[in-house]
Each structure stands twice: as structure tokens, then as C-alpha cells.
């Protein structure tokens, strides 16, 4: 192959967005909403992401909001990378994956290209979110919090997008009927995976940071297992139209 895998990943990412701009637009809007939610903590009071309660009844919103915002920003990244899943099914149905195989690629090579594309797209949104977070933090006086939020988003979003993309590509490969349910299902799985990051800041704020980091580690491990097993367990014939 004369083309580098990274170059192909970029082309696939671009193709995905050109095929379906809706997910990209919704992802950006959700990211902006999440950044606003995070910066709203500055209006409520002195923000802390250590999870220490301030003594009042109920969750401390100045702490909880930035952490809930992390989960929302991760979900925005999943949405932003969803066109790659759509493209994967489209390419399978049109014989593009079959052609890749005929060029000497293995099913693992094919998965890797689309995975790279999904990670590239989500990285673009994570970078955009980081800039937006820091800008909002500087304006609202919560710069330290915004840096922590940005770091948490990056640490959680990339493994979640990797795992979500891999299992949805596997699902789409195994699907016999040509139905377009893989993106909504991918979204649902993404929401389910990030669920602890939504709930724990509100229910047990003191554990929120720990739960977020555990979630990131567990998902990274799952994504690695999914990557290693998908190309072994799913035969080349499953990539045919």
C-alpha cells in the first residue's frame, strides 16, 4: 500500500462528515451546551472538582455541574464520530470493504482505518471543547476547573469512542439485513457507557472523579480487547456486501 494508514483515516473521516453532517452539527451544539453548563458553575459559586461537599442539602451544583458537563462533552464526541459508523455500513453495502480486502488488507486493517477516522473526528471535537472550556473558564474565573474538565473529557472520550466504534463495526459486519439501526444503537451504547459519569456527580459527588478515571481505564481495556478480538473472531466474509 502506498498510502499511509493515517492519511486514509483522514480521508475516511472527511468522507464520513460529508456523508452525514447532521451528527457533526448536533455534536458541536451539544458540546457548546455542555461547556455553558460547566461555566455556569462559576456563577453558582466557587467551583471545585475535588468532590468535597459544601455542607448544604443536596448536590453541590458548583461541583456537580462541571462533572456532569464532562459526561455531556464525551457524548458530544461520540455523536461527532457517528458518521464513521454510517460510512462503514455504506461502504460495506457498496462493496468498498470487499475491494479493500482484495487489495491485500485484512479485516483488522479495515477496522483500523475506520477506527482511526472515528478517533480523529472525536479528537477534533475534544480539542474544540478544550478551547471552549478554557475560554469560558478564563471569562468566568473558573480556569482551573475548565482545565480539569478538558483533561477528563479527553481521557474518557477517546476510549469510549474507540470501544463504541469497534463494537458497532463488529455489529454492522455481522448484520445480515441492510438496516440503518447501527448509529442509534451506537448512541444508546455510548449513553449507557457514560451513564455513571452523569449520575455519580449528583448522587455521590465525592466519588465522581474516581469513577470518571475508573470508567476511562475500564473502557480503554475493553476497547483494546474489542480491537484484538474483532479481527480474529469476525471473518473476512462478514465484510462483504
Amino acid at each position: 500500500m502506498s498510502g499511509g494508514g493515517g492519511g486514509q483515516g483522514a480521508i475516511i473521516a472527511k468522507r464520513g462528515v460529508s456523508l452525514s453532517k447532521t451528527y457533526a452539527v448536533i455534536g458541536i451544539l451539544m458540546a457548546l451546551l455542555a461547556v455553558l453548563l460547566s461555566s455556569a458553575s462559576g456563577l453558582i459559586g466557587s467551583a471545585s472538582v475535588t468532590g468535597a461537599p459544601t455542607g448544604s442539602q443536596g448536590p453541590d451544583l458548583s461541583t456537580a455541574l462541571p462533572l456532569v458537563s464532562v459526561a455531556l462533552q464525551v457524548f458530544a464526541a461520540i455523536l461527532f464520530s457517528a458518521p464513521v459508523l454510517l460510512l462503514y455500513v455504506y461502504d460495506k453495502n457498496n462493496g468498498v470493504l470487499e475491494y479493500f480486502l482484495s487489495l491485500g488488507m485484512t479485516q483488522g486493517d479495515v477496522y483500523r482505518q475506520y477506527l482511526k477516522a472515528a478517533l480523529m473526528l472525536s479528537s477534533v471535537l475534544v480539542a474544540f471543547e478544550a478551547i471552549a472550556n478554557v475560554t469560558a473558564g478564563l471569562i468566568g474565573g473558573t480556569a482551573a476547573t475548565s482545565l480539569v474538565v478538558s483533561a477528563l473529557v479527553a481521557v474518557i472520550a477517546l476510549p469510549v469512542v474507540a470501544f463504541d466504534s469497534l463494537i458497532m463495526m463488529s455489529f454492522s459486519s455481522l448484520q445480515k439485513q441492510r438496516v440503518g439501526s447501527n448509529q442509534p444503537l451506537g448512541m444508546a451504547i455510548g449513553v449507557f457507557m457514560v451513564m455513571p459519569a452523569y449520575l455519580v456527580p449528583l448522587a455521590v459527588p465525592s466519588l465522581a472523579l474516581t469513577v470518571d478515571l475508573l470508567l476511562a481505564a475500564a473502557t480503554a481495556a475493553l476497547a483494546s480487547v474489542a480491537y484484538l478480538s474483532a479481527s480474529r473472531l469476525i471473518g473476512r466474509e462478514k465484510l462483504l456486501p
Partner: protein
Amino acid sequence: MPTLELSGVTSGYGGRPVLHDVTIKAHEPAIYVVLGLNGAGKTTLFRTIAGILEPYSGEVLLDGEDLTRSREARKRINYLSHYNAIPEEMTVRDALDFYAKIEGGSVDEVLSLLNLEGLKDRKVSDLSQGQKKRVSVAKVFLRERDLYLLDEPTSNLDPAVSKEIRDILLRLAKDRIVLYSSHNLYEARDVGTNLVLVRDGRISYFGKISDVRAREYRVGIRTTADISGMIDAKLGEGGYYVLTVSTPEEAGLALRRLVQNGVLVTEMRELDNPLQDLFEGGDTS
């Protein structure tokens, strides 16, 4: 010169065999026409040779290298499936460039080769089925390979473009192996020198097309005179005098008799295709 060898290959989908114990050896550079009814196993045969399907048993070798396992060997193949496999959201040039970045080759050359310059800036999704097929065929010619697997390359194409593609293949086949599937028996006979007949997942004939003989076939003769008294021919379809023969020599003898009787023969052609019998289940003897 490349040698393609399949020995005892059984292959299929989901553990269900479609091809059964296929053994062929192609060592002569030529166009091998692959014929078979729908569902006979032609596409499965192509996918197995291309290394896309892993055979349940047997080997597929190109110059002794296993095409199922060797990535390098698979890079010596060009495979055209009957799916277009073209990113439809791209322009023609970008779509070809997409593949050129993976496998190399010159986009400008294939645009010129398939007369696609006028379409290069149009979106693939806006093209007609025939134009899409041309783009799909163009990607196969980005790089020259030792083995071409072409699954119905001229379907949806107009006769002029079909002829251009056949001419390209005839040039390539001088020192390469081209496997070419078609449903058109006349096209098959025109383009190919060798025949691979697939029936129910088995190879029922593998050999020279020129060796295929129908038991009987009809010859149509156009003349300026009534010839029904001179040879055993009756005026029939399309204004031809129809003569039934078993060998080309019989047809030649009939022609000689007409000429000796001073008849001006304006046209003489086979009305049946010898491949028809074979295709529909007859034998090759």
C-alpha cells in the same frame, strides 16, 4: 508468465460450501471466460481466488504463493466485483484518487484510458449506472497486475465502451491471466480463448473455447437466388436460408456447392452459439 493454480478448493459462506473441490491450473496468458448460471458459484470462485474468502479446504496459489495467506501475493491481483465499490459522495477524480493513495497508480492515465476526463469533476452519485461502471472499471486499471479477476466488467455499459474495455483486456492478456465472467455467450466467445464453466459449484469444463463444439448448430445464408434445391436449407428467420450442420467443414462444403452453382452468397453466419449447449447443460464432445 504467472501461473494460477487451485487444487481441491472448497469454499463458501458461513461454513456452507458453495464451491466444491475445484481444481484448475491456468499457466497460459489469456482471457479465461468464466460462465455459469446465476448462483452457480462464479462470484464465490472470484472471491476465493482474490483471497477475500478463505477456502475450507484446498489451496489457491499464484506462482506457488498462497493467495489466502500472503498479502504480497494478493497485491498482484486486481479484482472487479459486480458492486461498483466507488465512494459515491466523491467526485470521479477524488474517488479514483482515494484508491490511488492506497494502491498507487496514475489517476490521469485511467481517466484518459476510460474516456472519463469529461466526468472527472462530477459527483459519482450524479452519474448514470453505465458511467459509474466505467469509473469502477477505471480503478482496476490504476496499476498493472499479474492476475485480473473481472466479474461482469461490461454489464451496464454501452457497446462502444464494452469494446474499449475488451480491447484493453486483450492487450493485457498477452502476458497476464484475465478471468472474465459474463452472461453474454456471444461476448464470451468473442473475448475469450479459454473457458471455465461453473455448474452447481463445480468446474464442469476447463479448456479452449475453440474445442467446444455443439452437436448441431444452424448456419444462416443470405443469397440473391433460391438455394433450397441446391443444399438442404430452408428460408427461415431473418430472411436467411437456414442450414443445420454438425461441423464447420459441413458448412464449408455447402458454401462451395453454392459457389460452384454460380450463386452469389452475400452473408453467412452461425445462428447458434456452440457455448449455448454447454451453458444449458449439454456436453462438450
